[in-house]
């Protein structure tokens, strides 16, 4: 199509506004993370930070793994039900994303604190933690991370299974494969990139969670809690290498997420 002057003006305006948004999102992060790589490397020699780093990412990995299993099952089931069920259930699943994160943490208190439902369950299984409550344990951190990241995963998994051509499953079944074999050999492999992409997104979301974790487990400290504490006590300069580390970790996860995008999604990108 030949472009008119009005076309060029429209594109220029859109590009200018887009550049403004990009600058607003990127400049503060670049400014914050503009520290010497040596300063970031030195962080790994501080035991307190090393501990927080390991705790944060191990809990985030646990939350995204549990989330992947549960959300994949939920998404698979939902994708095979009438659309009205999705219309009712998906907004409910999204609620943890819509409430302030400290409120999510307070909601989890009812589940995790003594005498919460989960503690009753653990008590009956004789699995009660030494402190008598799950609060302030890595389990509470995982629960908080799962609470705020699983909704993303549920959406991604439902979309992945709903977008899969049902003809593949029918072909597998008519060749003689049962439903489990069809799920494990055909359907999951065909949507695996989407499922893993959802898990990577959940990992990033979990690792950056602050508000809900603050309520259920101030100690042991995750990286976001440690950053907040250092910022409150020691000021901006003390926190910049640590913040830069989180930004670099976020970039790495973003690269992983991009790599896991289904081919079709990249085609349209």
């Amino acid at each position: 199509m030949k472009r008119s002057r009005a076309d060029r003006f429209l594109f220029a305006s859109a590009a200018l506004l887009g550049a403004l948004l990009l600058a607003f999102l990127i400049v503060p992060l670049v400014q914050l993370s503009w520290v010497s790589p040596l300063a970031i490397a030195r962080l790994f020699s501080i035991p307190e930070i090393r501990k927080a780093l390991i705790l944060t990412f191990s809990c985030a990995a646990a939350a995204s793994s549990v989330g992947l299993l549960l959300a994949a099952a939920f998404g698979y089931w939902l994708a095979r039900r009438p659309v009205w069920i999705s219309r009712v259930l998906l907004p409910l699943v999204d609620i943890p994303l819509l409430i302030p994160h400290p409120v999510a943490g307070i909601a989890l208190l009812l589940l995790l604190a003594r005498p919460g439902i989960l503690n009753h369950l653990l008590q009956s299984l004789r699995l009660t933690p030494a402190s008598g409550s799950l609060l302030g344990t890595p389990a509470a951190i995982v629960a908080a991370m799962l609470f705020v990241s699983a909704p993303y995963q549920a959406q991604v998994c439902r979309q992945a299974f709903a977008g899969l051509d049902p003809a593949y499953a029918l072909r597998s079944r008519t060749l003689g494969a049962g439903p489990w074999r069809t799920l494990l050999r055909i359907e999951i492999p065909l949507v695996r990139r989407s499922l893993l992409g959802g898990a990577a997104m959940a990992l990033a979301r979990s690792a950056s969670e602050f508000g809900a974790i603050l309520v259920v487990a101030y100690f042991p400290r995750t990286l976001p809690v440690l950053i907040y504490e250092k910022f409150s006590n020691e000021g901006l300069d003390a926190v910049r290498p640590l913040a830069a580390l989180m930004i670099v970790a976020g970039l790495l996860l973003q690269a992983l997420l991009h790599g896991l995008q289904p081919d079709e999604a990249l085609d349209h990108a």
Partner: protein
Amino acid sequence: MPESSRYVRSLEVDSLELHRNSAKLGPICFTLIQSGCWWLAGPSGAGKSLLLESLAGFHAEAQGSVRVGGNEVASRSPERRAISLMPQRWRLFPHWTVARNLRFAASLGGANADRIAQLTHRLRVQDLVNRSARTLSGGETQRIALIQTLLSPARILLLDEPLSAIDAALQSVVLDLLQEEAAAQGRICLIAVHRPIEGVPMRGTLHIERGRLLPRMEPVRAPE
């Protein structure tokens, strides 16, 4: 003993009906009591695909009786009917190579590597086995899909326009293979086409129009 390994020699359909969106099928009644190949002929939109899909258990809403070797299978899931359908638009499993697609079907039907080699040689696709399933042309895909269907444990094979993307020279090879498979393995092949191909010795022809079978079902060859 699993249904599929029995020497099934009959397909009996009684009062089969399906209402799906604006399409209406049936009531359909017919019986095929000998192993061999049969045409299912009718114009586009006559209900050929809908009938085959209903027989294969693809539509939960289908009503009526479908008996395979005397056993009622209408309420069973597709893999437990001893019926396998090769749909008109068959896409292979795209995350695998051709060889893996064939091994998957073979593992379900208890076939071995020799049988895969024999069928791929017969349909002249032995050079394709290491290719990704995504890279095949329509005709190549159709031949691989046909081999997958032949490798399945089913004794009733429903083939929806299996020759549509296959060139004329290979069509007779495919039809000969189907005749031999039916005779050797006691299978019934119901092959949907717009118009039966002249001169091919089939057991008979079912004619379908507007979702109903026409009363004529000729010619039927005497059992050998």
